[in-house]
């Protein structure tokens, strides 16, 4: 049974942009997340991926996030993550994603 369909929405702020995500982050999230990233990277400052409403991330979703980080690196764009559950924080540590994006325990004040 497939999970909830993925959606992403960009909220631009003065100090950065928040990409709020809903549903399942897997390979089917690729296009929507990349589009959201492109939109956010046109703004100023850090891009914050907000996982608060994400119910499931699998290895193909990790690959999508790695793809986003690769784009960000090429553009010199800083990317952070917030709203991760304990489990997915562990997954981000194990996969070393957390070495390449700042994992915020709490939402930074600008967001």
């Amino acid at each position, binding site marked *: *049974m*497939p*999970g909830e369909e993925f959606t992403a929405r960009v909220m631009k702020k003065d100090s950065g942009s928040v990409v709020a995500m809903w549903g399942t982050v897997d390979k089917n999230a690729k296009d929507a997340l990349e589009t959201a990233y492109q939109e956010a990277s046109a703004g100023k400052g850090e891009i914050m991926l907000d996982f608060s409403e994400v119910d*499931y991330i*699998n*290895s*193909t979703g*990790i*690959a*999508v996030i*790695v*793809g986003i*980080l*690769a784009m960000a*690196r*090429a553009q010199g764009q800083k990317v952070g993550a917030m709203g991760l*559950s*304990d*489990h997915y924080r*562990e*997954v981000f540590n*194990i*996969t*070393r*994603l957390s*070495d*390449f994006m700042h994992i915020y325990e709490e939402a930074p004040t600008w967001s």
Partner: protein
Amino acid sequence: MSQSRRSRRSEKLEESQVREPSPRTRLIDSVEIPQGDPLESVLLSAGGPVEVSSIEAESETILTLREAGVELVVPLIGQGELLGALYLGSRLSDQPYSGDDRRLLGSLASQVAPAMKVAQLVREQQAEAKERERIEQELRVAALIQQTLLPKELPAIRGWSVDAFYRPARAVGGDFYDFIELADGRLGVIIGDVTDKGVPAALVMATCRSMLRGAAQGNDSPAAVLAEVNDNLVPEIPPAMFVTCLYAIVDTAAGNVVFANAGHNLPYVRSSDGVVELRATGMPLGLMAGMDYEEKTYRLDHGDVMVLTSDGITEAHNPDGEMYGFARLMGQVANKSKGDDVVASLVGDLEKWSGPGSEQEDDITLVVVRRTASAERSASAFDVDSEVKRLVSFRLPSIEGNERLAIDTVVEAVAPLGLSPIRLERLKTAVGETVMNAIEHGNHNDPALDVGVEVSTTGSALTVRVTDQGGDSEIPDAETPDIEAKLAGEQTPRGWGLFLVAQMVDEVRRSADNGTHVVELVMNREGEI
């Protein structure tokens, strides 16, 4: 001018395309040409525009066209099939249609016809795809209902070992089994089969299961329980559906089994004297109210094994079209080559019979109740840790996204173990990734191939066994992905699955045998209980 299509999904001509008709012509809605109407053969043989006044044949349709003042019918023919026709009234100038007019109309028709044919095919294909998706969805729902209602845990009774095996067919039949704890250490054992498949069968199974559970409490007589459920089920069940069911009450202290049978496969008992059938007569449930059921008693001695089966086993065919049959089943119950593991022995033999890669025709259900030998009993009292308890066993078609269904079913099955939230989450990720690999890399997303999942536990470890039919290719070792290379775009961003699984559980065992991949995820339970 008006247009007609022979398809049932006929559309009205858009008004904007219609000029004001001449006074002698009435604007008509689409006129269907019924199959076999004489007009059909007239148009097919003419191959071009036909004057209505020249048609000699008579029919309702031809009359309708005449009354509407249609002068010319231009057939739209594609691949020898009449796809539609253009109906034209008299010209605004009241002049007859000229040769040029006819040629123009004929050439228009020859260009429109192929486009109509393509549109028809596309529409048919879209309808077929939608129907296939609907069926897949229905199968998923039926499987979910069935797996939710089957016991998540096998009864653990000192001096007895109870085992169950359930493998749904792709079309999900209506097999079910259940265990009911009764007063005085007695155990109710149910096996049943709803005729029909899919969601209707799953719903009847759910109803029947609740009725049986309700009737079984406080009732010592299996015959009375079946009679009551039958009377309650008759008004509820759709016509032409019924349920075969065997209900046995096992007195776990004395070893007596009291049973009644509503038309289900007979159970077998393997004792030191050989294999016997336990016969009791009775009509299937839901056919007719007011039925009586025969009730019998059999005593199981230490070491005796009672085997309950569904007809998915006896009616399985081999590649030559022969049925597995009762004689072979009885022979396998007698076969002690796998010791007391009747499930392994029977399922193994059945798979050999059906042949590799064959699609399972019907659900397969097995319930095995064994009264352990007295010597084993005292031994097991000192060795509770090594007793393997199967929590759940199920199969899923290889469809993308079904790993979520596997995760949900495993989570429900391990609920009684009380894993800590973080370990439960790790297990979910490991199961999801492993089942996803089995679907995608093992079975290549072929919905005809199943992924098997079995969850079992001992006192010290929890094991999730995932199988696919991926051939003899080795599953690669889990390597640590090089995230720097991935971020630099030197490697594909993918390739995290096996690595992640290895980090989530205490041990991953992999093997490939006889075309089957087996991955076992082991999680130690120390500190959990």
